């Protein structure tokens, strides 16, 4: 494995970049979140509802004295509402100066994905959640949809 990486590095040193992703499960699918956006991963905790906001915004949590809004990626992508289990986690993302949490079913692992292993997806406007994916990475035969963090928070 290590050997493979170094050869690819040698071959395409100028164009390839390795990015670390945290792989999370949402429903049946695996999603990758660029680790450089992640501030923290916390267990599910009590969320205070905020009235009169879009339904995908679940409310706010107290993260060590800072108030952080939390959104449900499931609702945002038009899936079934979250079912909270002991594996449910909130991933705290840094966007600019602010923190925003996203709820995921569980967190799996950290992977290195080389940019030449990423396939761009062709946009299908009918598919509601493909807009939040910037590409599909291959890792040990599994497919990981790489989340476009900026697109996820863009409409907010």
């Amino acid at each position, binding site marked *: 494995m290590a050997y493979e990486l170094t050869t690819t590095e040698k071959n395409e040193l100028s164009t390839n970049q390795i990015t670390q992703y945290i792989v999370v499960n949402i429903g049946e699918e695996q999603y990758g979140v660029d680790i450089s956006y992640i501030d923290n991963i916390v267990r599910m905790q*009590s969320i*205070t*509802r*905020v*009235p*009169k*906001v*879009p339904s995908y*915004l679940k409310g*706010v*949590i*107290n993260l060590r*004295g*800072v*108030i*952080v*809004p939390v959104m449900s990626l499931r609702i945002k992508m038009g899936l079934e509402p979250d079912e909270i289990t002991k594996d449910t986690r909130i991933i705290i993302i840094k*966007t600019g100066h*602010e*923190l*925003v949490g996203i709820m995921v079913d569980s967190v799996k692992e950290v992977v290195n994905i080389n940019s030449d292993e990423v396939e761009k997806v062709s946009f299908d406007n009918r598919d509601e959640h493909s807009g939040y994916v910037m590409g599909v990475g291959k890792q040990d035969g599994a497919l990981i949809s790489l989340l476009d963090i900026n697109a996820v*928070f863009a409409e*907010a």
Partner: protein
Amino acid sequence: MDVSQYLDIFLDESEEHLQNLNTQVLALEQDAENMDTVNEIFRTAHTFKGMAGTMGYKRMQNLTHDMENVFSKVRDGELKVSAKMVDVLFQCLDALEEYVSNIRETQDEGDNDNQPIIKALNAMLDGSDGDDSAAKAPAEEKKAEAPAKEAASGNKWDSVVIKEADYKKLDDAVNSGKKLYGLNVVVQDGCILKAARAFLVFKAIEELGEIITTDPSTQDIEDEKFESDFCMIIGSESTPDKIVQAVKNVSEIADCFIGEYTVNTPGDDMAEEPKEEEKETPKAETKQAAPAKNEVAPAGKASPTAQGSQKQGDKKAAGKPQVSHTIRVDIEKLDVLMNLVSELIIAKNSLVSAATASSSSGSGSNSINEHIEYLESVTTNLHESVMKVRMVPIESVVNKFPRMIRDLSKKLDKPMELYMSGEETELDRTVVDEIGDPLMHLLRNSADHGLESAEVRAQRGKPEVGSIFLDAYQDGNNVVIEVRDDGNGIDTDSVRQKAIERGIMTEEQAYATDDDDIIQLLFMPSFSTAKKVSDVSGRGVGLDVVKSKIEALSGEVEVKTKLGEGSTFIIRLPLTLAIIQALMVVVGGEKYAISLGSIQTIEDISPSDIKIVQSKEVIHLRGTVIPIIRLDEMLDCQSERKPDANMVVVIVKKGDKLAGLVVDELIGQQEIVIKSMGKYINKCKFISGATILGDGEIALILDSNAII
């Protein structure tokens, strides 16, 4: 040492002096004969001159110098205060203000010499006879004073120990035709930067001659290791008067005594003595001499390095402003703070010991509660004190207004008078910094649009001189600032006309809208009722700026007006921005906070008391009809209250309007820290923020102003 490190203090002091001068010159305009005022202006101008000079701002120094000259003549009764003179003085103050603001931004005073003002000042001086005598008189006075005090001080410099290496310097000085003087410089009591002042004295003297030695040593003086005075032996070609003058020009120097210095030993021995010593103790002496030389060196070098750094400062001109926001704090407030912090530490320690005790014996919970109560009272007081440190009187802002109204009165050719009260009212420093512009807009507005011209006022049977009032006072958790005038008031019909012209409303709408709402139109961007656009206002950029500025400070503006009698603009500002007293309530199982400041009363209402008026629910309470707002419906949650049970209604007010908020349950009063929820989720206008409760839970803060 670098002068630029005193820039902050210089700027602070300059602003204070300028404000003082403005106030005094205004007073002078009212009462030209008052000698106290004249003296005060003279003193301030003099200190100001010294400060500017030592910081190396020559243009500022020149201008203040000429101003000082004029006052020295006024003081001596050779010049009468005239209206023209006051005008020139105000121009002069404006020019100085410009210098100061230039310095604040670029560390450079700019290159405007303000020649016309200097000419005007000099013309005033020449206008009277014997202008030289005025300048001489104070100098002579000081001459007479100096020797008298000199005797009293007992020629302190005689006791200065001359080190061996310095004898040669003394010799050199005498040989090069310089006279030797002993100098005793006394620094004012309570001077904060003694070393800096001493350094400025050194600098001033080095321009006139050479410093041979000092007592205490130069190093000690730089390290501020001296009480209130220090001595020095200098060699100089200038006269004692000039030297004293130069030293006294440094601000916060209380006094300076000078006398010719003669070496203790008779003339011939002077040259021999050191030689003899040299012979007797050849090695030990030279060792001593070497450090002594080193000690003198910094003094000699101080001047060039300082000048160098000043030049650097000049070069920095293009850079960004480097001035920090400072706050002057009453030492008592800091003492209280210090005490509280000590108490906090004690409270923590007792809590720690109580915790240890309880874990060992298992019976300490009572004492822990006690300690927690103690801790609570300490933190509450600590919070209050910190807030107080941040509080400054609005004086610093409003003091410039009398001058502004005076200028406006001349410009608009309307006689008017400004009456102020409550200048001592305190507000958070950040609020005070921001409140200046809105108030200025309102005052200009009153002066320009509000007050009628003298003729119209005479016709209407009002006193010809219009009055503008600026009143500040504290009202519960708010500070209220009112700008009131006895002018024309707002003509709502002409506002309606304007709204129709502008196409904001149709004619029907305009006449269906009540006066209060019509007045609100004035706060819209680019809406002005002034018929003419004047230099002062009328471009319609005033009131909307006022409103947005005040709202940014979480305050509100209200207008009361009566046509023909005048109008009042009422600004309400919260005392503090970060921590408030709030009432915690429960709605549908969720906790919400309502600012205590907006709550009028809390009522227990039976559902049968609710009446329907214009398809809205209202209650009739002590003669007032109050609309009812069901918070559970508004906040999209399910009330847990039984429909036929009595309702808890929190009556909130916004200006004159009242509303009753129906809640499920009251929890109680609590001090809460307001936290922002961030712009991502900040969509709900009824929620102004959130707070974290003791158990880590989050409660949202209801903005009752938005709800009503």
